[in-house]
């Protein structure tokens, strides 16, 4: 069922049954009470796997008899080692141990090649997905040997050796405790190059649990503004987001419907103003498409039939004309 499916970029289901599907693997995870014998508990997983058995038989698919598991407390599924009694999930421990060993060898050698390093770090990245805080250990290792041939030996910097040592030593910790409690507070952060702020506020257990279910699975970040964007922002001159998907229904867009501008955007588009201008237009397809969806498009500054060229900005008349347009604010984008 859709509400039981764990999938990338979807909220985690509320449970108690969870289903994962990856091409030929069908996985079911069932929460059970530790206070009652398993046989006495009515669980959804039995029903789901009995039904899937029937479905496979009807269409000529065969489930691998040696790999079939039902209600086991410890299993390795989809590259995750799950211990449902201890409540731990991690990359398979045997692989982590081997990876620690390989890393130790490289640390002891203090030399590596790009190909070996990429392979080792790539494997560690997989391990760290099960305890994302571990990513904070890695920094300089990503820049090692970037200008070298893939198989050329080069010495590692001390910082990178330290990072590898830390990965290796902390390898046993890269697991997730499924019984960890959710912090009953919400945290907010904001930062700029000159300062930062963190604040927190207590929330009820239900609310934090719901927020946790919707947590972004890859971590979330806001890009630090730099250069012209930063200057404009600090002067209170943020540009208006005109092309965000939230205001455009793609189906309507393709059918030629008029773009639904934000209220602010519509107000700003006065009779003498233009929504956009295309420089270096060539055949001006971009202008035509934007005009077709109702935007007020500047006709452009034509030097010849080919349109304005990049080099034409060296021409004083062209430059001044464009500078005037920018200074008057008559063209938004």
């Amino acid at each position, binding site marked *: 069922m859709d509400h039981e499916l764990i999938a990338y970029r979807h909220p985690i289901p509320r449970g108690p049954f969870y289903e994962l599907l990856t091409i*030929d693997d069908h996985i079911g*995870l069932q929460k059970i009470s530790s206070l009652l014998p398993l046989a006495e508990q009515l669980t959804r997983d039995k029903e789901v796997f009995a039904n899937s*058995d029937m*479905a496979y038989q009807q269409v000529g698919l065969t*489930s691998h008899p040696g*790999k079939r598991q039902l209600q086991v407390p410890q299993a390795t599924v989809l590259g995750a080692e*799950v211990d449902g009694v201890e409540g731990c999930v991690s990359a398979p421990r045997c692989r982590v141990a081997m990876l620690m060993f390989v890393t130790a060898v490289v640390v*002891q*050698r203090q030399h590596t090649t790009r190909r070996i390093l990429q*392979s080792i770090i790539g494997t560690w990245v997989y391990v760290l997905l099960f305890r994302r805080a571990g990513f904070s250990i890695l920094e300089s290792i990503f820049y090692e040997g970037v200008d070298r041939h893939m198989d050329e030996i080069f010495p590692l910097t001390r910082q990178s050796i330290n990072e590898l040592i830390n990965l290796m030593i902390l390898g046993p910790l890269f697991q997730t405790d499924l019984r960890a409690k959710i912090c009953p507070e919400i945290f907010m952060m904001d930062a700029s190059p000159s300062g930062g702020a963190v604040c927190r506020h207590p929330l009820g257990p239900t609310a934090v649990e719901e927020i946790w279910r919707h947590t972004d699975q890859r971590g979330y970040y806001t890009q630090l503004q730099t250069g012209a964007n930063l200057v404009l922002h600090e002067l209170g001159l943020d540009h208006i987001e005109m092309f965000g998907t939230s205001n455009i229904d793609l189906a309507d867009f393709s059918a030629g419907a008029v773009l639904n501008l934000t209220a602010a955007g519509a107000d700003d588009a006065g009779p003498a103003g233009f929504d956009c201008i295309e420089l270096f237009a060539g055949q001006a397809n971009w202008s035509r498409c934007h005009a077709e969806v109702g935007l007020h498009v500047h006709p452009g500054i034509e030097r010849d039939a080919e349109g304005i060229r990049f080099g034409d900005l060296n021409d004083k008349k062209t430059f001044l004309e464009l500078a005037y347009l920018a200074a008057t604010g008559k063209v938004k984008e």
Partner: protein
Amino acid sequence: MLETRAHCLQYVVVSLNWLNLGCPISPPPSACVGSHLSDGQHDMLERLEGLIHHFWKAPDISFDELGRAAEKLANLCNASFDLSAVSEFDHQDLQNFLDVVSTKVDPYGPKYGKCVSGSCDISCSSEHKGDTVPSPDVEPWQPETLPARVPLANTVSKEVFADRIKWKLGPLFDPLPFLSDPVVHSAFKRPDVLRTPESGWPRMARAQVRCKRSELLQLAQKWDDLGACRLVTCDSVRRDEAVGIFAINKDQQYDHLIVNPIDINSRQFSYTNFTKTLAPGALICLLRLEDHENLVSSSDDLCEFYYTFKVSEDRAVRNAIGMAFDSSEICHLKCFDSKWHGQKLYICLGMLAMGDGLAVEIAQQSHFNLLQ
């Protein structure tokens, strides 16, 4: 064992302290051995002990346990041992730690300790060791004897050997009733539905067929016996669109066969819908258990899933393998038609091919809808 775990915990604490203190050259007194521990620090030590305890409870490592990662890790080990042994600074403690680790998992002979479990059946002295890993008894590497380059054996693509490709099931599964997305439904039957205009095709090198003729003929025989072999005349397929093949490691005994349609894939729109329902295992970390709850797992793994798909003639022809055969070489196959005598022919895989740009979407969508 307890002593080893205690050492492991010490190293973990040292490492976490060092990171938390901003990587200092020398520790403050409060982080040195013998300093007073707060209640919070005691709690933290208990948690760390629990994690380390769980890690050390892992069963002994065997090649089978490592699955597909085994070959990759073995090659990494071999290549890493070939790197320089120049010591610019001493790692006495690290060496001790290495000894602890290697005593448990060591597949590398006496130099790094003995395998104490007796069940440690990884053998890196197998074929991969060969000419890249020196004997454990040789002198340590000296800077002047270093090789300039150390290649890492390729575990991604390998030559195809018919005996290493497991193929027991024929194409029995018709996915069409389960392809609910009209684009995928249509493209499954007629792959050219997703073809891009020729003016936008990128230039690609032609994919290699990493298989000897005799091996491909053996494979074709297997497919033919299962009703999954098709033949097509060479002049009915664009030469640059005939596909390559290679193998990737599955386990010690078997490989996966991968079709490499790099040219055709680059000439088709990519399309994903149900592919977005794929679930990486790390998402399980987001589940939560209450103190009185446990978690049990159930799983099914479909046998040779891709090889059980019935495909249309058009899709089979998309899998024409770029090695031309005289009709006389393959006229014994059941799928051979007498009208092809005297012609050059390609062998086609008459089922869903791993490597087909739409294969994951087709497989995921049909399996998903089947279980609804």
